[in-house]
């Protein structure tokens, strides 16, 4: 049993929006184990984005504490700690500076953290490009000329440049075409195993989660309502929010349809039981 890499202990977050208190997260306790791909699922408003922002240090929790390898994460993180937790965002076109070449974007972490000798950095960038299935011809290109799938690969290369331990993937493929998504998910999986990375995979799409995750945590209205291994979650979801998410996914095969119909029947019978 590995020690938790990231501990989220009774974390809550309240925002003051236009004079009103919005409770985005409420008593969330969760442990992320090193090397796993842990999915965070929920609909919009469930708190998953807020949790992501807390983990990458954009905000500090209102209550509770986030611990990295047993030590509390400070509000102002030192550079070494920033390096360890990186993010791949949903919209790759926004995530890359349109006025900087690809090489500059991928090189940024190397410069910020002074990794590798200055002259060796370009070579390192080329290696990273190759790792994500691109090549040196992309160095001098502009984000404007790249497709969504290519841009996301660049974003992944940039995250890898930090040599992080944890990567937060926020709906990384939801804006990509189906075939491109399949390849990017495969790439992410390969990279995780090759580099011993830990993934926090945020998604609203349970089918994607089924394909990639080891464990799943389900969020509903700011609360963590269920955590389970991925097989267990799909075999026997315990919380109503989980069922709702499973039932709502449009399916493409008979096997999926049967699975979903079974859940729907169970939900209905449960509703029948409650007064």
């Amino acid at each position, binding site marked *: 049993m590995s020690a938790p890499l990231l501990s989220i202990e009774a974390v809550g977050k309240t925002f003051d929006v236009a004079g009103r208190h919005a409770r985005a997260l409420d008593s969330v306790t969760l442990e992320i184990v090193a090397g796993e791909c842990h999915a965070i699922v929920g609909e919009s408003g469930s708190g998953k984005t807020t949790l992501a922002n807390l983990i990458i240090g954009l905000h500090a929790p209102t209550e509770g504490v986030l611990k990295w390898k047993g030590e509390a994460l400070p509000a102002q993180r030192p550079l070494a700690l920033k390096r360890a937790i990186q993010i791949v965002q949903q919209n790759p076109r926004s995530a890359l500076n349109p006025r900087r070449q690809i090489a500059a974007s991928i090189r940024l972490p190397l410069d910020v953290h002074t990794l590798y000798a200055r002259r060796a950095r370009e070579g390192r960038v080329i290696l990273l490009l190759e790792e994500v299935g691109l090549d040196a011809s992309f160095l001098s290109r502009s984000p404007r000329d790249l497709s*969504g799938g290519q841009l996301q690969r660049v974003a992944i290369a940039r995250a890898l440049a930090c040599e992080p331990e944890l990567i937060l993937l926020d709906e990384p493929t939801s804006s990509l*075409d*189906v*075939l491109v998504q399949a*390849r990017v998910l495969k790439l992410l999986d390969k990279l995780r195993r090759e580099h011993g990375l830990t993934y926090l995979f945020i998604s609203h799409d349970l089918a994607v989660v089924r394909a990639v995750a080891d464990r799943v945590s389900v969020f509903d209205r700011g609360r963590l309502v269920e955590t389970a291994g991925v097989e267990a979650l799909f075999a026997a979801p315990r919380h109503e929010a989980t069922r709702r998410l499973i039932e709502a*996914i449009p399916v493409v095969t008979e096997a999926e349809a049967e699975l979903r119909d079974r859940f729907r029947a169970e939900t209905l019978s449960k509703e029948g039981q409650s007064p």
Partner: protein
Amino acid sequence: MPSDEVILHLRDVRLAFGKSGGATEVLHGVGLHVRKGEKVALVGESGSGKSVTARLILGLLQEERGVSVSGSIRFVGEEIAAGGDFVRDARGRRLTMIFQDPSSALNPTFTIMDQFHEVLRRANPGISRRAAHAKASQWLTDVLLRDPDRVLSSYVFQLSGGMSQRVMIAMALANDPALLIADEPGTALDVSVQAQTLKLMEELATRLGTAVLFISHNLGVVREFADRVYVIYRGRIVEHGGVEQIFANPLHPYTRALLRAVPKISEAGLPDLPEFSEDFLNPRMDHPGCVEPADEVAS
């Protein structure tokens, strides 16, 4: 129930942008049809040409510069490939469209009632505000919105995504169109909200006998909703079949790749698939029993 009457028929439609010297062809001979009461899906990824097809049918593209269209687009028997008055007149009445993001498709500076009134005026120019209000109210009830009066007096930013989507569906069906084009409806919404609104749209369209052309990149949604499916890839229709046929037995390499690539809730892991393969460019394959209407006698 689907009848024989052909509401929409595209034959060998080609579309190119740019000047005749260096024009880029975007659609390479697209052919499809929708009969009365049918729900037909046009499935494709980005760059496939599905969205421009919708704009072509509506006659919107033809009004722009540098657009050249050839082939035939017949709507309720009238030729509209070149755009023109007939289709302009039909827009909003006999031919309506709903869009991906309801919050941006509705005008933020007018109330819902103002906009509904506009919509109803298209079919009935003299309709009074009161009569329009009554009709709109009835429609909002039909789309399962509680408290229609409150919704009518609201602005779009006061409504949730799901509510705006229902308002848009109501406005699109209020004038009893012959054809409704739905362009990626609900993509901007949460999954469960999307599922509900699509179900609603399906029920209403069935009840009214409206033909629906449903444009999407989401195979699962198409499977729930459509009777027949066209798969479009890089400006060409590559497969055409009934919904059960396509999903149970996809014929074209591109369709097969798509279906294998979609993550499924019933299985873990992902297959290793190429992003592109030469045989994606194979010619169109139609499933048995799925034929385009024989060339109507050009009378």
